[in-house]
């Protein structure tokens, strides 16, 4: 099987700071991949590079066999790569249904009429558990629902690959179970591949079939969740040097 999304030797520096260093990755169709790493390890930067918001200094990214490295963000998302933002970025002056309907009408849905798009948006909101808030404004929502809105908006474009940036951060254990269930449901219903950045280990361990660990922009591990969780270098990166070996 060939990868649907892959990166080759990606480098990105901000001033003197290396956010990504010779980074390679692959995502298979239908796969749920976890991306972990301490704060500032370059996870969000990777998403920014994939979605075209940040240009890599060097390296290549390929999607469904063709290179997308220097394409503008709108072209990349119309090919079928959707993302969420770690710090939520709803369109604040628009209600939820319009937030999502715009993603529908510009996405890969063959829908070009706003009215029809709103119908489809309502379905997506329902799927994400936001149907009862369809006519609320983002300012009236709690963070949990704003994160759901990020997911709904990304899903609405009917992508092939979904990049989730810490959508479950700050949820309680019960909500996390619900969120994991949502991730599975997304894959089943939409048949897409998912890359999720997550600090909540429980989510990573249950949802992902493979986990990539990053530290200072360098890949430490790329294996089954259990293996990565027990990887000495990963433990050291998270806990500091003194804990290594314990």
């Amino acid at each position, binding site marked *: 099987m060939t990868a649907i999304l892959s990166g080759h030797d990606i480098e990105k520096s901000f001033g003197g700071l290396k956010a990504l260093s010779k980074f390679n990755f692959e995502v298979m169709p239908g796969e749920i991949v976890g991306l972990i790493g301490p704060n500032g390890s370059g996870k969000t930067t990777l998403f920014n590079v994939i979605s075209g918001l940040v240009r890599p200094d060097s390296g290549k990214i390929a999607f469904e066999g063709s290179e997308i490295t220097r394409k503008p963000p*709108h072209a990349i998302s119309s090919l079928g790569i959707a993302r969420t933002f770690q710090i939520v*970025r709803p369109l604040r002056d628009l209600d939820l249904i319009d937030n999502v309907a*715009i993603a529908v009408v510009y996405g*890969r849905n063959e829908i070009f009429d706003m009215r029809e798009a709103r119908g489809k948006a309502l379905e997506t909101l329902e799927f994400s558990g936001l149907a009862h808030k369809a006519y609320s404004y983002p300012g009236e929502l709690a963070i949990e629902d704003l994160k759901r809105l990020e997911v709904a908006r990304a899903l609405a*474009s009917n992508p092939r690959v979904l990049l989730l940036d810490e959508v479950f951060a700050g949820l309680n254990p019960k909500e996390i179970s619900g969120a994991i269930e949502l991730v599975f449901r997304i894959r089943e219903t939409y048949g897409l591949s998912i890359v999720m950045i997550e600090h909540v280990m429980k989510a990573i361990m249950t949802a992902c079939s493979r986990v990539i660990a990053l530290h200072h922009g360098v890949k430490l591990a790329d294996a089954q969740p259990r293996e990565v969780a027990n990887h000495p270098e990963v433990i050291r990166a998270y806990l500091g040097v003194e804990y290594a070996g314990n």
Partner: protein
Amino acid sequence: MAIALIGLVAFPLFGPPVYFISFVFWVFLYVCLSSSWNLIGGYAGYLSFGHVAFFGIGAYATAMIGKIFGLSITMTLLATIPAGVISSFIAIIVGYPCLRLRGPYFAVITLCFSFVSQLTVKNLEFLGGADGLWLKSMDVPVLVNRTIFYELMLFLTVLTVWVSYLVGRSRFGAGLRAIKEDEEVAQTMAINAPRLKIMAFALSAFFPGIAGGIYACYLSYIHPDVVFDVNMSILQVLMALFGGASSWVGPVVGAVSLTLVNEGLSTFVKAELARIIYGLLFIIVIVFMPNGILEFFSRKRRKIER
């Protein structure tokens, strides 16, 4: 709506004083200008402060086409259409670099663009330079003349407002709204922001281009200080913001009410005092009703028409 329109079309037939016809002509002109400004300034949130440039370009393009081809005044009026196209074309060229700038930078660069256009015309001999340009005038009684221009401007204004209405509820308009809210997020929603902005800018230059042409024929004399007057740029922005820049109704309400207020004030109070009241009124609206009077009174929040 239809009845109101028929009423407007028939208005000159009831034999109102010429003064009234000219006044309503001005109201239409401003409704047209602020509605077309709203396509880029209101929907997309790119506050162009140099939009009068497209009015001036349209006026000069019409005059020059008429002059070069030796057209009669009727034919010159038809030349306003290519003048609108020229205006849009220049908007594409100017917009390409300028629309990369955001917020105050865009406002300043568009303002500069209108000054540069004005100075260029002033210094070009073949455009009449600082002497201005004469056009052929219509050989008909004043009332007929004013009525013709009234109807033309009415037609253009209705067309502009109709386009603004359609854009407001279309996919295109929704894309512009997203750009206004957060351009980066819009791009990750597969919205081709650079292209949409250029399209909106070109469209918003088309109608002022035609309006400038009609205005040139109406006055039968144009001067850079008149058709590139920066006050006109500012007024069309103020009118759209006053009414509410997020829907097609806002600029219409803003343009009509501010023209009426201005006219009323300058008729009934001293000119200086009128200006002060006018300015104060505007400050009050911007400070207390930042989304325009319409939204303030209706408390309507919906930004995309359904």
